């Protein structure tokens, strides 16, 4: 293979290795610290196995549904131009970056017992729609993750060079042939990764299961870990379940890596694809319906959150605004760290072939599946020896939030970097352009769109995540999600709704600003 012609440079290997080591220390290192403090691991009981089964089952279904539903939505968005399109694309990212508790209340306002659907149904004499139970968990997961899958797939669609569609049109391809020859290979390359990412998210999410799960049937691994920490202080059992999550993640990453067919990159002129294959009235109508439904599903709950909170924003106490400021700083710091980590990994992985790609998936996936509780507790154990953990509450939150966003940013950046390498690497090498110059002149300019998306994603995710702050926090170092929880715990539900709206607005504002910045030149 020609790849040997440009081996991994020492700087790249160093940066990539350092990023990997950092993530491994954060995930496996903290797990080790908990196990060490527990003086060994215990065994798995019957309720642990039940939790493992439920967790895997719902994660599989949620991820499959999210990706399946995302295909028509991404396809419709990729081949249509309409006013406000860029806003719609950005808004589609919103559910994913919402704090869970805000989103759950939004969802319930539509699908809950007293929600819009049931009110409309009752007026028509229809029986009550039950959201609580496994179906509620899956609905919520699809709500969160379908937009993310849509964005991943949309990136894939937009990465198909415009020239290919032009060529297809001049060869008289039918829509079916276009799908087979251009879109299907792209999906084979993008879908396994998107599925994996969402599967892993659903594996560790537990606030969702606990709000709409309907009872102990919906016990996830993360909830078992939580319980073991809190009531039993069984660190050994908790560490063992943490290890199970890590093992599941490694296996899933391996499988996804093996079924992914690397995309054959063909350099295009970075233009906007005109789609001659999608001009039929039927396809047009189909896309309008798909986009309309997706928008309604995702945006109505958000709208209700906004309406609910709006009257109370003005009444928010100063402490909430202070917390908002702290959250912004944490979000920006954690975004920078996440970008440095994932870009280092992406550059390293791009030249290492399939093994390195799977390695990158496993390492970044670890950060996602590692239980935040285990990570936080492990860090606490490690830091407590030499410093006051409270003094480090915000930095630690920023670092952990960065670690858990790396899987997403890497998923966006790695394919883009690999493609640029394939297309321009040899040319650059033959011109003697290497290292920093290559990064600055060739890679970064072409990476604007995925970099902007990654930055927005990382900042927004960090903004909304409750993370480990609760474990470390002192009263004067509050983040906005924590402040919101504290308002709810003090009966201030209305103020909490106001804080929720501020949180959503800031998260979304960050996401939109960065994402839009990255796409400044590309969208009409």
């Amino acid at each position: 293979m020609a790849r040997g012609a440009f081996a991994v440079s020492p700087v790249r290997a160093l940066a990539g290795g350092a990023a990997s080591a950092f993530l491994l220390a954060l995930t496996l290192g903290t797990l080790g610290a908990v196990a060490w403090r527990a003086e060994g691991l215990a065994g798995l009981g019957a309720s642990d196995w039940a939790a493992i089964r439920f967790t895997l089952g719902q994660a599989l279904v949620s991820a499959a549904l999210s990706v399946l539903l995302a295909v028509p939505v991404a396809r419709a968005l990729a081949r249509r131009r309409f006013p406000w399109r860029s806003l719609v694309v950005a808004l589609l990212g919103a559910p994913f970056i919402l704090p869970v508790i805000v989103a759950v209340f939004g969802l319930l306002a539509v699908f809950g017992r007293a929600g819009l659907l049931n009110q409309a149904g009752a007026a028509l004499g229809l029986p009550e729609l039950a959201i609580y139970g496994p179906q509620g968990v899956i609905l919520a997961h699809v709500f969160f993750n379908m937009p993310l899958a849509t964005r991943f797939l949309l990136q894939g669609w937009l990465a198909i060079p415009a020239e290919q569609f032009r060529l297809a049109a001049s060869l008289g391809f039918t829509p079916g042939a276009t799908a087979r020859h251009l879109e299907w290979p792209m999906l084979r390359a993008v879908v396994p990764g998107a599925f994996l990412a969402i599967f892993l998210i659903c594996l560790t999410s537990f606030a969702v299961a606990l709000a709409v799960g309907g009872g102990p049937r919906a016990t996830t691994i993360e909830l078992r870990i939580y319980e073991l920490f809190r009531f039993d202080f069984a660190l050994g059992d908790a560490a063992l379940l943490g290890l199970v999550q890590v093992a599941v993640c490694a296996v899933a990453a391996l499988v996804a890596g093996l079924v992914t067919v690397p995309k054959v990159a063909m350099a295009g002129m970075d233009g906007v694809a005109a789609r001659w294959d999608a001009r039929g009235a039927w396809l047009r109508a189909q896309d309008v319906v798909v986009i309309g439904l997706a928008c309604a599903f995702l945006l109505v709950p958000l709208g209700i959150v906004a309406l609910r909170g709006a009257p109370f924003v003005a009444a928010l106490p100063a402490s909430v605004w202070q917390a908002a400021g702290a959250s912004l700083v944490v979000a920006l710091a954690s975004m920078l760290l996440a970008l440095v980590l994932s870009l280092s990994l992406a550059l390293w992985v791009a030249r290492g072939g399939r093994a390195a790609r799977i390695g990158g998936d496993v390492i970044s996936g670890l950060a996602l599946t590692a239980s935040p509780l285990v990570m936080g507790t492990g860090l606490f154990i490690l830091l407590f020896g030499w410093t006051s953990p409270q003094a480090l509450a915000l930095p630690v939150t920023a670092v952990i939030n960065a670690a858990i966003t790396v899987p997403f940013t890497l998923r966006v950046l790695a394919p883009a970097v690999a493609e640029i390498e394939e297309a321009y690497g040899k040319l650059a090498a033959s011109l003697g352009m290497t290292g920093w110059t290559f990064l600055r002149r060739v890679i970064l300019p072409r990476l604007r769109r995925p970099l902007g998306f990654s930055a927005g994603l990382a900042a927004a995710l960090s903004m909304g995540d409750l993370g480990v702050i609760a474990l470390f926090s002192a009263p004067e170092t509050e983040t906005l999600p924590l402040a919101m929880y504290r308002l709810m715990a003090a009966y201030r539900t209305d103020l909490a709704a106001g804080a929720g709206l501020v949180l959503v607005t800031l998260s979304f504002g960050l996401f939109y600003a960065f994402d839009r910045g990255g796409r400044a030149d590309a969208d009409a």
Partner: protein
Amino acid sequence: MKTLPLLAGLALGTAAAADTPVLTVYTYDSFVTEWGPGPAVEAAFEATCACDLQFVGAGDGAALLGRIRLEGARSEADVVLGLDTNLTAAAAETGLFAPHGVTADYDLPIAFEDPLFVPFDWGYFAFVGNVDGPAPESFEALAASEARVVIQDPRSSTPGLGLLLWVDSVFGEDAAAVWEGLEDNIVTVTRGWSEAYGLFLEGEADLVLSYTTSPAYHLIAEDDASKRALPFAEGHYMQVEVAGKLAGSDVPALADEFLAFMVSEAFQSVIPTTNWMYPAVTPEAGLPDGFETLVTPETALLLPAGEAPAAREAALETWLEALSR
């Protein structure tokens, strides 16, 4: 952003430490917020102690105990405030707490004595609903009714655990049948009190597991008389919240002073309208207006602290089995 002033504060703190001793009190989150008792208590105690009282919020009651266990004997905490009697046996077992020597004339519905822990407030668990909503007045009536209720998971929430022990102490062997009867009334089981109460307020359930004192918040703080707690014929399980002094404290005399202050007028009078619980010692002026409207159960139920852990384990198994069908 916050780290720099904080580090500076730490440096200044050490410089001033020579004349101002610091008392560090670990407590649950809602105690230290601006609506909780924390700010008023801090001001009142600092006015008399010539010390710096620092509250550190660490999640909720159960998380608080976990934190202390993690930190062990090296903990900076001098006092832990906010454990309940379901947790005190486990807390005592750690060997980290020291005897207190505080005596007071407690206004608790039960006799309370514990060498390691001092009670500061208490309450009854109860189902709370709307005045115009369904109002079953026993577990049996609730199970037979159409009322939809939201409860908390006993594995992650203290009220959830309270309900578990409530059913267990009333029905014993028959608890499984009671849970099976309640199964179709339970809308969902949430992680914590906040989520459950939020769902109730948003109209997702007719009833929510909370405290008999919850309607007082709506009445006093919001002038809203639409909420009520349902008196149950079987009696109500109690929660008694306590504080204890750590054996490793570097200011043991100050910690003792704080525990004694805790059952005094200045501390106790703040509790009803900030923590929305009953004070352990009723203030001289009595309870605030509005508290007289609350339901007062005839039978108070509470397992002795020593029996709680074993009862929890057995009751949890019953609960899981009954609700997993």
